[in-house]
């Protein structure tokens, strides 16, 4: 009887062990396949030209198609436009997000704090298409055209809630004694935050900013509604612009541009993954330092 039961337990244990490993491997398989197909399809177009010239216009494409040469051009307009958009977004969300996190760090358990915290959570779960529509209603429609500025605002709104929660998480990793010490020394609230909490979490904050950047660069849906797309490099922030992710979306719809799409996507993935790797590195080092 007991031997039987033991046998049953052992086999269940073995079965669950195998099942968990196999399923986990299957779950990671798409990631590997994705990397594989992006590198395979994207690498052939990555050249110097790809980084230094703008997207070909439709006439340029049709001329190139009649000749033996491959389609000229690159994604420089996407890189420059995307750079402006992300800078605008950073200028908006980093200060607001930091200050909001400072508030939540101190007042999260009060009634208004709780209400605001709920709204951050709900905002962080909002689909980016909603943010795209709303920014369209707020900024694009009153002025009648899409712009890098509108894109930046949309991106900032999309990143802000996640950023607040991550900064708050960083603050909460700090040892409790830090704040207690500050208070017992008679330091004011402002001084505790500015001289103790923020300096101690500097590296952690850098890692959070980097990871929010890596999330923001890949966001496409809010930009589709607010930024549109151009062939050339655009320095005017209040005119239509484009970004790397928007270019991927655009190339997806255009036949003959599939090669460009893969290369742009590969580049986008490389940027995003590099940023998140660096950010994680920072975070790990910081956590080690804090826990010592």
């Amino acid at each position, binding site marked *: 009887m007991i031997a039987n039961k033991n046998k049953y337990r052992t086999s269940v244990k073995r079965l669950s062990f195998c*099942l*968990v490993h196999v399923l986990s491997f299957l779950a990671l398989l798409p990631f590997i*396949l994705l990397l594989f197909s992006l590198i395979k399809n994207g690498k052939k177009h990555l050249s110097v030209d790809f980084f230094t010239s703008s997207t070909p216009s439709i006439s340029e494409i049709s001329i190139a198609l009649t000749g033996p040469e491959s389609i000229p051009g690159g994604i420089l307009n996407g890189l420059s436009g995307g750079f402006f958009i992300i800078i605008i977004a950073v200028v908006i969300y980093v200060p607001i997000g930091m*200050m909001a996190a400072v508030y939540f760090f101190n007042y999260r358990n009060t009634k208004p704090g709780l209400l*605001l915290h*709920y709204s951050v959570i709900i905002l962080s779960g909002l689909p980016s298409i909603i943010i795209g529509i709303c920014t369209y209603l*707020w900024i694009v429609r009153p002025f009648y055209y899409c712009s890098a500025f509108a894109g930046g605002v949309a991106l900032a709104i999309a990143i802000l809630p996640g950023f607040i929660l991550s900064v708050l998480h960083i603050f909460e990793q700090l040892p409790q004694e830090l704040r207690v010490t500050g208070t017992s020394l008679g330091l004011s609230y402002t001084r505790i935050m500015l001289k103790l909490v923020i300096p101690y979490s500097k590296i952690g904050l850098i890692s959070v900013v980097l990871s929010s950047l890596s999330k923001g660069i890949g966001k496409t849906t809010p930009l589709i509604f607010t930024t549109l797309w151009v062939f050339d490099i655009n320095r005017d922030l209040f005119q239509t612009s484009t970004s790397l992710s928007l270019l991927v979306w655009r190339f*997806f719809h255009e036949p003959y541009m599939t090669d460009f799409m893969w290369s742009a996507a590969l580049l986008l993935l490389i940027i995003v*993954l590099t940023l998140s790797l660096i950010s994680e590195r920072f975070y790990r080092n910081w956590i080690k330092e804090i826990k010592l």
Partner: protein
Amino acid sequence: MKDKIFQTASFISAAISLLLLVAIFFYLLSESLPAIKHFGLFDFISSTEWVEKEGEEHYGAGAFIIGTFLTATLALIISIPFSSSLTLLITEYWAETRAASFLNSLLLLCVNIPTIIWGIWGYFSLRPVFESLGIGSSGTGILTTSVALAIMITPTASLLSVSFASKIDRRLRETAYSLGATRFDIIRKISFPLARKSYLISYLFAFGKALGETLIVVMLIGNTNQIPQKITDTGSSLSSIILNQFESAGDLKFSSLVALGFILFISTALVNFTARYIRRVKV
């Protein structure tokens, strides 16, 4: 004085999120009122027709609501075994080894992959597989979309549940081991009951993410304005129809599209609110 300014500034920054939420709510509501008035709230939600012909315009959300919830639910169902295996691997089988922390970092990378990249990968690599199996119209459809969505949400769901599950006291587990429990016994009798709520929260958040996903759905669902009869049919979701028709929209159609956005807003907000609320209540 300086204290006061700093405090006020931080309060205002925090209040911006509530302000944004309220502004989004009212703007979406006021923009969708013309459509709701024209068709009636109940008819708009339940009607499944989407006729664009001038003079006979009729817009209803039914087909898209069904499409959205069908794809998201299927995606969740598909992803649960995979994401919970990953969670178990990190928190139980490989707990506190280098491999586990490596896997954790890998999942973090997966979470950060932009959805547009999952979308094009789904379109060019996943769809042909379904096409060769004869599923959907040339590979697109509800099932393909759900599989792609499941792939996207699996890392999110497992990472969230890992972060909750790692808070369980290790001593409980060690006690159980010393009493002769196997790993499976521990998962079934200790880890799972204790982490039940955290699994639920993670899956709810993942479900919310799947509900609102746009690009993957647009690329893979087939974009037909019909109610899917079976899971291999093509269809449309709330987000995909908005993205497809936004540029060419006249007044009434624009208002209807915003109304679709409003429905999406309410449903994702409810899902996320529930998830956050459960976290507060001790189960």
